[in-house]
């Protein structure tokens, strides 16, 4: 174990610089978020992730945010285990009818002020699953959404840009 730790120190970090702030995509995402919201959230966010029936593709990429390349926590962004600790709910999936009550109850368990970020095409409008008897079709049908991050699934970079937009 010592050898691996030593080697890591000598090699230097793999972590990449943050996506640029002058990026047009980032500006567009930031425009979606109310200025007051950003002022309130300051420079730190606690995020509670909710899978509302996604295929798990979005979760894989959200998990990737924690790896050495993206290192989410350096931005003051942190995933928390309970909605009661959260500022932001990050919701994925087309919201299956079997999950809609759980989503609503998680939202209600989150103290205000709170924001909802819907990630992935499914979370926007149900995506490929819209029209199914088993899906509500989009997060906004159950809880109010403040920011959408597109993609199927959104790449870690796209997720990072969206979450940074919430804070800047």
């Amino acid at each position, binding site marked *: *174990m010592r*050898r*691996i*730790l030593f080697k890591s120190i000598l090699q230097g970090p*793999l972590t990449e610089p943050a996506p640029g702030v002058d990026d047009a995509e980032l500006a567009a995402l930031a425009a979606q978020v109310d200025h007051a919201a950003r002022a309130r959230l300051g420079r730190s966010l606690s995020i509670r*992730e*909710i*899978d*509302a*029936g*996604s*295929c*798990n*593709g*979005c*979760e*894989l*990429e*959200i*998990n*990737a945010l*924690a*790896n*050495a*390349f993206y290192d989410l926590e350096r931005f003051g962004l942190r*995933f928390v*285990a*309970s*909605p009661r600790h959260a500022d932001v709910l990050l919701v994925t*999936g*087309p919201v*299956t*009818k*079997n*999950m*809609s*009550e*759980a989503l609503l109850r*998680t939202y209600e368990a989150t103290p205000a002020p709170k924001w909802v970020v819907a990630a992935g095409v499914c979370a926007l409008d149900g995506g*490929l*699953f819209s*029209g*199914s*008897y*088993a*899906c509500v079709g989009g997060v906004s049908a159950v809880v109010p959404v403040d920011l959408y991050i597109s993609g*199927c*699934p959104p*790449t870690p970079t796209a997720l990072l840009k969206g979450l940074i937009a919430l804070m800047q």
Partner: protein
Amino acid sequence: MPVLADMIARGRRIEAHRLCPRVVVDDDLWRAFAAELAEGHATLLGLWGDVGAVHMGLLLEAEKAISVVTIECPEGYFPSVGRVHSPAIRLERTIRDLYGLQPEGRPDPRPWLDHGRWGVRYPLAATQEPAQPARPYAFLASEGESLHQIPVGPVHAGIIEPGHFRFTANGEAIVRLEERLGYAHKGVEGLMTGASIEQAAKLAGRTSGDSTVAYAFAFARAVEAALGVDIPPRATWLRALMAELERLANHFGDIGAICNDVAFALMLAHCGVLRERVLRTAAACFGHRLMMDCIIPGGVCVDLSASGAAQIRELLSAARRAFPPLIELYDNTASLQDRTVGAGTVHPQLARQYGCGGFVGRASGRDFDARRDLPYPPYDLLRFEVPVRDDGDVNARIWIRIREVEQSLALIEQILDRLPADGPLRAPVTAGLPGEGLALVEGFRGDVLAAVRLDSEARVERCHLRDPSWFQWPVLEAAIEGNIVADFPLCNKSFNCSYSGHDL
């Protein structure tokens, strides 16, 4: 077993079903097949509903062959298989939830995927019924002194999929775990009915995001079998390349994540880097990190450039440098082994009865891999070993995955060496006669089954996708018994069953 072959010969053969026989049988013969399953003469590959019929997929392990047996149920009843063979119970509950067909003599009358929230009952049946008000789910009772219950989910503390676990514990020891799933039910099979092949392929690729290549591969092979399409050789090899990259990415990610569940974050950090390198290479070569929608019926829709091949070779050498020290680290850290050895043991007999696929089965003595035992191109031309162990605990499942990483690295090298020169990537997939096809593809988690029936305009009339998790989730309930509650995340992660693939 010649007995089974004789029984199959007694059924009415459906000529339109390709690559393996499908026969229609009467009630008595259906019961006889169920009895053969219970005796262990065959393995249940799947049990799925249709409008007015139920199909049973059988794996004859001795002959290494698949057969599909169908029972027509115009009255809405069929003899229960779960009554004699418990791996069928959840599948039968699902058939009833989706098609309204009643398993006669069923051991468990509770619904499974239907939580009473769809606004409709029997959504895939010819005639649906209005929903009944949702009733509280009756969890199985546990009796004894000092027992307490711990309900967990469907929203979990980590970034994982939704499902509910009901633990009954005596102090720290788990006396019973009961799973309640269905929260991720999206109605995939309902959306596929009547869809074009292209649309259905996209849906298949989103059945379980971590196995998108395996699902697209299985669906494409089933469609090609139904239509009698031969795909170009280069496409065949590229498919296997993508499948092995997907296996590699999942194994790297999960080996790290399992160790992280016993608070050994160093493995997660290093394995996470390896996983990310695989995904970035996939994105550079095929344009998508998870390689979604890259495999399509008829072939593949992206080619591998010379620079892409070079990047994959670089990935191989990077992984071969970085992975062995991590294996050594796992092997030499006593505090890690203290948690993984002896935890969550699956008895080989249970793995065999349930036909557990993937590393769950292979860590418990079930020597089956669809790539070797029911080979599909190009695996019939590739050299690889299938690691098997008998100890069946978390440690065994980790070791199987470590060995599979090594095999996949070797396979990718062979594929790159033998990849046919540039040529067409896609054969036309055009409507013809109505046809049926079935395919079994080995995903990282186990064998993914796809059964497709197409109409004369090449639209999907019925498509069933069976995730390997169907036969792993129930075994997790048994594996956890007697373990402490705090070890559940570890045991659960060592299985890593799919919620979305199971719930559909």
